[in-house]
């Protein structure tokens, strides 16, 4: 039991010191009926490090690794190259094994990194302030809807059909319990987004409109008119960004008038990891900050006047405000935020722009190549690194059949919208800097074969 430093003799000495004759004396408050006399039966005993590693390696080999095949999946989680130093830095014990920075004098490392993170997120999103992370994009999205309800004192949220269906599901789950009304819709396989119809849906009960940018099919639309329409009715515009790399190439939602911008940060610094842990990003204008959920890091000075950082505006939070808090969130995703900020620092503005333009150029080339596959049509007029193809037959079995040809060819809309008949032929293809020309050719060939 390599993680337990007490020796048998220590235990005896310590039991004596506390006046107990056996360890059982320390569990006297446990009701008789609930005391286990011995270890739980039917479970294996402890294993050596080597044995655990061997068994988990065996399980890991039963998965098809993204990096080992031509890979084109996106829809809220993207495969990007992460510089080796990022993973090294987040494994420094001082970051990895520290707690939430409640004692700021000995947590300046985490606090300064979070202050820098907040600044980077706010600038990337085109907002004034950002918090120190949420669990992920989907929960950040729901928290933004709740925040809009508190600010506007209205209970109807209008959700774009381009919003990730899992994000819609999370919001729908919560809305059932909070009494919010969600006005939702399902996307269509067209080049146009539903922004004009969203403008028509805003009324005097609307707290917010939620729109994804780029959307679930990869389409990009100017949010300016929608923002104006929201503000004319005193509603808020919430923009959701699932692919932050896109903002190296296209305008930020903040500069187009979004009031709250939230999203998934996973693309920067955090690997695919089968869906988690990821990092939720959350930004807004300064005047809304007191309704914001989550931790905030702020600048201050110490008793000698030296600059330092602390968690601040805690009166919004559960540990102070309890049932009146802006959110119940406590532990969030700080180590992933650290990975995010370290990767973003390595990129810098120059690197982010290069990365974004490389993604876009590869995606443009791939879209043109795949549109030449017989029967396949490109749905999008606009896109960043992800676009939707309309296949001549259902995409879900096609994706499955391409696996047999060694290609992970994209996300079928049937997987995300099993009920929507009009979407079953849709295939969403993400093309990042990790994709090679050979990969695109492999996808084109596989697609042609499975459609034949």
């Amino acid at each position: 039991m390599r993680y337990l430093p007490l020796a048998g003799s220590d235990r005896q000495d310590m039991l004596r010191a506390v006046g107990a004759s056996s360890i059982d004396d320390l569990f006297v408050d446990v009701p008789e009926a609930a005391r286990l006399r011995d270890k739980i039966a039917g479970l294996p005993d402890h294993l050596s490090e080597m044995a655990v590693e061997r068994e988990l390696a065996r399980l890991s080999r039963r998965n098809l690794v993204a990096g080992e095949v031509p890979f084109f999946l996106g829809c809220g989680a993207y495969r990007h190259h992460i510089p080796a130093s990022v993973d090294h830095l987040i494994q420094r014990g001082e970051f990895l094994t520290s707690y939430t920075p409640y004692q700021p004098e000995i947590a300046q490392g985490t606090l300064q990194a979070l202050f820098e993170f907040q600044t980077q997120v706010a600038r990337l999103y085109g907002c004034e302030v950002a918090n120190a992370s949420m669990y992920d994009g989907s929960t950040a999205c729901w928290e933004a809807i709740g925040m809009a309800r508190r600010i506007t004192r209205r209970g109807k949220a209008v959700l774009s059909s381009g919003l990730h269906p899992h994000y819609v599901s999370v919001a729908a789950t919560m809305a059932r319990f909070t009494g919010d009304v969600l006005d939702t819709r399902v996307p269509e396989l067209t080049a146009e987004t539903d922004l004009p119809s969203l403008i028509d849906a805003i009324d005097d009960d609307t707290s917010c409109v939620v729109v994804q940018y780029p959307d679930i099919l990869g389409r990009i639309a100017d949010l300016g008119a929608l923002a104006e329409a929201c503000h004319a009715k005193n509603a808020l515009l919430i923009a959701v960004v699932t692919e932050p790399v896109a903002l190296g190439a296209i305008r930020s939602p903040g500069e187009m008038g979004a009031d709250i911008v939230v999203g998934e940060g996973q693309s920067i610094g955090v690997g695919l990891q089968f869906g988690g842990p990821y990092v939720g990003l959350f930004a807004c204008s300064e005047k809304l900050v007191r309704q914001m959920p989550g931790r905030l890091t702020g600048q201050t000075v110490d008793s000698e006047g030296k600059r330092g950082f602390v968690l601040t505006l805690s009166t919004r939070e559960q540990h102070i405000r309890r049932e009146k808090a802006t959110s119940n969130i406590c532990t969030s995703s700080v180590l992933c935020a650290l990975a995010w900020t370290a990767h973003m620092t390595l990129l810098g503005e120059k690197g982010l722009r290069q990365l974004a333009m490389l993604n876009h150029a590869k995606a443009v080339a791939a879209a043109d190549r795949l549109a030449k596959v017989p029967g396949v049509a490109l749905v999008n007029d606009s896109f960043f690194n992800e676009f939707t193809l309309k296949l001549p037959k259902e995409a879900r079995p096609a994706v499955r059949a391409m696996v047999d040809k060694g290609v992970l060819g994209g996300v079928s809309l049937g997987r995300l919208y099993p009920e929507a008949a009009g979407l079953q032929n849709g295939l969403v293809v993400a093309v990042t800097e990790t994709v090679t020309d050979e990969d695109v050719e492999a996808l084109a060939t596989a697609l042609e074969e499975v459609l034949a």
Partner: protein
Amino acid sequence: MTINQSGWRPTAPEAGAASGDTYTGNRALMLEEALLFEIGDTDTTGVDFAEAPASESRLGGLERNRTIGLAGLSEPEAVRHYTRLSRQNYAIDLGLFPLGSCTMKHNPRLNEKVARMPGFADIHPLQPVDTVQGALELIHRLAGWLVELTGMHSVAMSPKAGAHGELCGLLAIRSALEARGDAREVILVPESAHGTNPATAAFAGYRVESIPATARGRVDFDALKARLGPDVAAVMITNPNTCGLFEPDMVEISRAVHEAGGLVYCDGANFNAIVGRVRPGDLGIDAMHINLHKTFSTPHGGGGPGSGPVVFSEALTPFAPLPFVEKQGDHFALVEEETAGEHHGSSFGRMVAFHGQMGMFTRALAYIMSHGADGLRQVSEDAVLNANYILRRLDDLLDAPFGDSGPCMHEALFSDKGFAGGLTTLDLAKGLIDEGFHPMTMYFPLVVHGAMLIEPTETESKAALDQFIGAIRSVAERAKAGDRSLKAAPVHAPRRRLDETLAARKPVLVWKESPQAEAAE
């Protein structure tokens, strides 16, 4: 745009006068580090990319036309920046981290290694399920352990952290009550509860009422019984509680709540005290979250990511969230919205995109397999023994408000009674920083004046405990003697006491160029 054109790496502003003796403000290994935006600029990058092939833009006419203002560093500078920052943090790798109710135990590096195996780290959540059978099997296997260790009926794996798990539990409870046409409005929460409990109850649409504690630090069962009634949906109870004590009436509490038509939610933050020795299912509870980042050693990372699976009784199982993993013959299936209808139609729905904190599942399973059933029982025994050792080695000097009511569980609670000269729990905590320790949890639970809650965990040696005890005794004696020099502590940390009032009164939440720098461009 260049953010800092001089190339000079400044120390913190106004550092000169205070830090005195050195040109740089550094003190040997204690290195000051400027902000990223003061040392980096928008033209510097630490990565190399191939030139993007020339192609037409399909960005919908929305090409970025403004500077973002993201400072970059070269790779050597970036590694140095974060390494220097890291050294301003205390961490479990450096020493005892006795934060009560936080379970800061050793984080095994095997966990980190297995989580980074490409078969777990480099798979996409929407890959066809037959390409991720190993991942689903891992989730299923961890779920099996959690169900066995808690003696419950099922487990929801997707909640992202403890508070998210609480929400999961309450949504299942509310769904179950609504399904029987019994809308109830109130959640009872003991006044010693963690702040997430009332916040979660409110988030789930409930009204919160507080239940007092007894003089022995337990839930006032009589007050609880008196409040039960047709409007009470559930009781949220932490056991072992935040005073570090087991609730001896837990079985009777559960029975009384059930007889009144309500349900019992248990906050499992303190599961480390009883893992392998008590199964919460035997206490009659209906739902409990498990913090994998506490009991099962996944690292806190400075504030997450965590993971908060929720175990359910048979009564609540049908209402558990989507998605979940189910074994069907030799195949592991992912039950999502489309397949749930057939046999999981009562689910309250999805709480999160994708399937939960896979990276934490891998780490937690590696830890659980390493300890096994025998080792996990030893974990709780050692955790409880270490806490009692601290309680009894300090209770002659520090007031232990519930020290007379028997042994504690995995954490020892003290108050500031007897401190002199206006010295407080905060002063003792800051004094401990100078002694090289992270302080204990302060001013929580709220039911004890100047509370100090110490949780050593099982991964501390007797020598480490003895050194910590010596340090805290030394500082406590100063506090009791009214030694005002404690008010200045810490004096040896990277920063002296920070002005939290200023931070809240004039919030500076992001870095901004100074007006002069902007004018110069």
